[in-house]
């Protein structure tokens, strides 16, 4: 493994972790709204949130490219007001990983919240707890395993993201090149040994993520 390879591994890992943290508050809010409330348009929002799971990733990438490009609605606004360009930068990698892993996080969080007995939250209120305290001390604590498992799934999905990322961020060595993109490029150039080394790292990271998820799913919380 060369220094360049380790840079790719490090970049892929931290930007995947960052994307997971970025989507966490939105995932918690969306999961809670879907689990606990009925509201007009809920089905439409559920469908939109699931689109990145079922659409071809390159199609999602194309939408992001059109949205975030200098002539796109959001990209143009950011360029004109903040002089910020997203497309073909590490920020584009962050955005594509976030968008592609968001549905997995929301699904896990929603199920985790649905499994919390609402009666516990009600009784916590009769004990004098504010809505915020009920949310953090009861709802989130009881759903914590599901939330963390969802974060790990989202992280693992981000590690392996390819289609949307190459559309919106390209594959610029040292800037936007991730493990998946580097493996693809190595195979294209006939550098199979290099591709296999990166593949081995990908497998190790995936094992660690799935192992952690399984461990959390089985672990019994010790009472506080």
């Amino acid at each position, binding site marked *: 493994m060369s220094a360049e390879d380790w840079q790719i591994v490090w970049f892929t890992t931290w930007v995947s972790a960052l994307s997971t943290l970025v989507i966490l508050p939105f995932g918690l809010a969306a999961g809670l709204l879907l689990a606990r409330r009925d509201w007009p348009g809920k089905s439409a929002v559920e469908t939109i949130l699931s689109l990145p799971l079922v659409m071809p990733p390159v199609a999602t990438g194309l939408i992001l490219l059109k949205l975030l490009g200098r002539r796109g609605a959001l990209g143009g606004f950011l360029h004109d007001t903040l002089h910020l360009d997203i497309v073909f930068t590490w920020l584009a990698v962050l955005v594509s990983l976030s968008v592609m892993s968001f549905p997995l996080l929301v699904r896990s969080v929603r199920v985790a919240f649905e499994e919390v*007995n609402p009666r516990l939250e009600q009784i916590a*209120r*009769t*004990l004098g707890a504010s809505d915020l305290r009920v949310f953090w001390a009861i709802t989130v604590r009881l759903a914590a395993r599901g939330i963390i498992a969802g974060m790990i799934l989202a992280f693992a999905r981000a590690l392996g993201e390819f289609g949307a990322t190459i559309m919106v961020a390209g594959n610029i060595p040292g800037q936007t090149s991730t493990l998946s993109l580097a493996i693809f490029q190595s195979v294209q150039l006939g550098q199979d040994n290099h591709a296999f080394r990166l593949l081995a790292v990908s497998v190790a990271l995936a094992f660690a993520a799935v192992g952690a998820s399984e461990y959390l799913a089985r672990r019994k919380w010790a*009472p506080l």
Partner: protein
Amino acid sequence: MKLLLQRICLPLKEFTLEVDVGIQSQVTAIFGPSGAGKTSLLDLVAGLRRPKSALIQLSDRVLTDTARGWNISARSREIGYVPQDLALFPHLSVRGNLLFGYRAASNSLFRFEHVIDVLEIQPLLPRGVTDLSGGEKQRVALARALLTAPRLVLLDEPLASLDQKLKAKIIPYLCRVRDEFDLPMLYVTHDQAEAAALCDEVLVMESGRFVRQGKPDAIFVDYPMSLSAEGYSRRLEGLQSGENRQFSDD
């Protein structure tokens, strides 16, 4: 204490809960078959449900008055609630559950040490609530409600899940709480013996309406009793006279 439940109207699936009653006894049983609307009424009093119309007043404090758009939230009502499933927080220890709503009360009756002493909970404090027996869970749920220094306690069939032997062991604790804390209580049950052993007054509820109100002796004279109040009383006398002061219910 005077609890006013007036103009109560809450549509439920099978019927509409309609109540208009004033309660002045210290411990009042709400007695009736399953599905009569008893739990829904307690939820209303606790502020966990929004009625179509209601005036709920506890002594001089109006808790709900839909005519004026007034509603005090559940967290500010100062009402302790022990639900049928107890709703102990499974991720917290017994101590964590008890301290969740603990208010360092000016009234020394509701001091932490005093409450756990009355209910003999001290040895349970470090344990997880999922490891407790049924009777221990009942006592912890009751203590948790008391530690909020409530002005009224709602007990929703607190003994329903226990067998007769365990009931006989838990009832003395309820009697102690009744006598020690001098707290008004609404006690939902469909067990006549429990109502007779603990309560000063009985309100009989059927399909969302109170159909009778009176002293336990007067109310239950017409009813066949599965386990007589005298039977309970005899057990209580035996337990309280010291033949089983440990109240171990494992």
